[in-house]
């Protein structure tokens, strides 16, 4: 499906028959314009990230880190030097890890049920999974707090975790489901024909095959969890996560350490992402050795 591959035969045909040449008329300028526009759009997406990376090396005067003063490594050599910032980050990582495990496990089971089985009520279930995605975060957070208040549940680490699994579930289900849809069931049938039990089939055939989808879902869940502010803000009690720490800081003082940790999170996520892509590509290369079924 590469664009180049698809246009090549036409170019040849155009030469042979001298037919449609008009597609090129005035096209140069348009092509050039599109290239420039796309590059500007990409630049727009990346500039704020660059600003964060650059300002993490700033040595700001005053409480805010908004104006460039001079290059400094102080914040990078002492990233946890601001009281509370290390604990907040640790809390965020713990919640992200636990909620990722919870949401990925529950969501994968749900996705399996949705794609693999014919059952009554699939349409309402699909709708039910979609509704949380269409609900503004502020409503999700406020609603959950309403319930906790009514039951006199003390908000804190546990309630944040509950909330994160809740909002991550729909994302996990949808991600895993999209992976499952192209799944070749004959492989499972083959395993069962060869005498594998249902559990063995799942563990040895199904799970490894859907693993890329499960991993992307888990990565997404982790990223969403560690980034969440709105829902957490409602259900955190006195627990402080990294985004809550930033929110508190944004009104009082923004030390460069915040930019340093943000840069670290960015670089680590980027590395993880590249690693996953690289591994998937390797897996696909290995899989492409055997003949592939015809695509629809």
């Amino acid at each position, binding site marked *: *499906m*590469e*664009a180049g591959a698809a246009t090549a035969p*036409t170019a040849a045909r155009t030469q042979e028959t001298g037919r*449609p040449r*008009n*597609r090129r*008329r*005035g096209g140069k300028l*348009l092509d050039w314009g599109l290239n420039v526009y*796309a590059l500007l759009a*990409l630049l*727009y*997406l*990346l*500039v*704020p990230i660059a600003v*964060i990376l650059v*300002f993490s090396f700033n040595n700001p005067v005053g409480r805010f880190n908004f104006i460039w003063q001079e290059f400094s490594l102080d914040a990078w050599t002492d990233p946890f030097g601001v009281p509370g910032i290390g604990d907040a980050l640790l809390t965020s990582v713990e919640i992200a890890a636990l909620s990722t495990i919870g949401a990925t*496990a*529950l*969501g994968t*089971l*749900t996705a399996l049920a949705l*794609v693999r089985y014919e*059952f009554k009520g699939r349409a309402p*279930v*699909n709708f*039910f*999974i979609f509704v949380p*995605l*269409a*609900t503004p975060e*502020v*409503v999700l957070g406020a609603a959950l*707090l*309403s*319930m906790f*208040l*009514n039951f006199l549940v003390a908000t804190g680490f546990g309630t944040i975790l509950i909330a994160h*699994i*809740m909002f991550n*579930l*729909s994302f996990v289900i949808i991600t895993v489901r999209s992976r499952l*849809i192209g799944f070749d069931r004959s492989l499972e049938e083959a395993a069962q024909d060869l005498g594998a039990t249902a559990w063995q089939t799942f563990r040895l055939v199904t799970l490894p095959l859907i693993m890329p989808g499960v991993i992307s879902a888990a990565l997404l869940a982790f*990223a969403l969890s560690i*980034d969440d*502010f*709105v829902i957490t*803000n*409602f259900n955190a009690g006195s627990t402080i996560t990294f*985004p809550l720490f*930033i929110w508190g800081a*944004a009104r009082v003082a923004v030390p460069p350490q*915040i930019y340093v940790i*943000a840069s670290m*999170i960015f670089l680590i996520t*980027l590395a993880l992402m*590249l690693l996953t*892509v690289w591994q998937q590509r390797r897996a696909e290369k290995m899989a492409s050795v055997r003949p592939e079924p015809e695509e629809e």
Partner: protein
Amino acid sequence: MSARIRKAGLPYLLLLPGLGWLAVFFLIPLGYTAFESLKAGTLDTGFIFDWQFSNYTDAISDYNEQFLRSFEYAALATIAGLLIGYPLAYFIAFRGGKWRNAMLLAVIAPFFVTYLIRTLSWETILSDSGFVVDTLKSVGILGEDGRLLDTTFSVIAGITYNFLPFMILPLYASLERVDHRLLEAGYDLYGRRRDVFLRVTLPLSMPGVVAGSLLMFIPAAGDFINAELLGTPNQYMIGNVIQSRYLEIGDYPTAAALSFILMAVMLAIVLIWARIAGTEALLGTEGEAR
């Protein structure tokens, strides 16, 4: 247990944990919000359930300005997102070549930076003595005491940036799926570039336009972080009101009523959209029933 019963019960068993979690921590809380929204009283005397429907009418008449502003800002940001995102998605899908994955990575890169920090970064970029304001002043676009920060512009720009990847990814997904043979057919039939784009590419990418607009509009309309950090109370949206009523003032009934109205309006928009676009594209369930 016979094999038949197992087969029939298994899907429900698999669904139970996930859907149960959503029922207990999403559906029931909504019920409590409804309950909360009909209470009367004050924070000091306590709130008592009283079928206080006036909470809804009061909420609408007191905060219709913020409601309208939320939808206006979200709509403007979505349009800006389409204008920025469509050409970029088109470029990546048709001209990306071997750089395609790298460019997609750049599209989602903002998500690797904490949301609040992305917004703080815009605060840095647009700040009063920053590079952008200085440049605009020296060119004369901005007056001597002109500002970018704390304006409607900065809030909408922030919203646009923060939710742009939600727009670009579905656009890219639908453009990438466009069958190039159809475009070739269009050219072979002497279609000009504009005709082929308007009559083939654009209609085929409509599911992406619909999904992207929705995915951008929903979080944008409920957002309050951009208005808080990049704006002033004059730019406050309905999210700001809900969060301050709830967490700062403790006026739970009003906050609950506002939440419910916001959610109802959102669901209405989504369902109307689904009618227009077809539910499969929206729910992502194409090709599911096997």
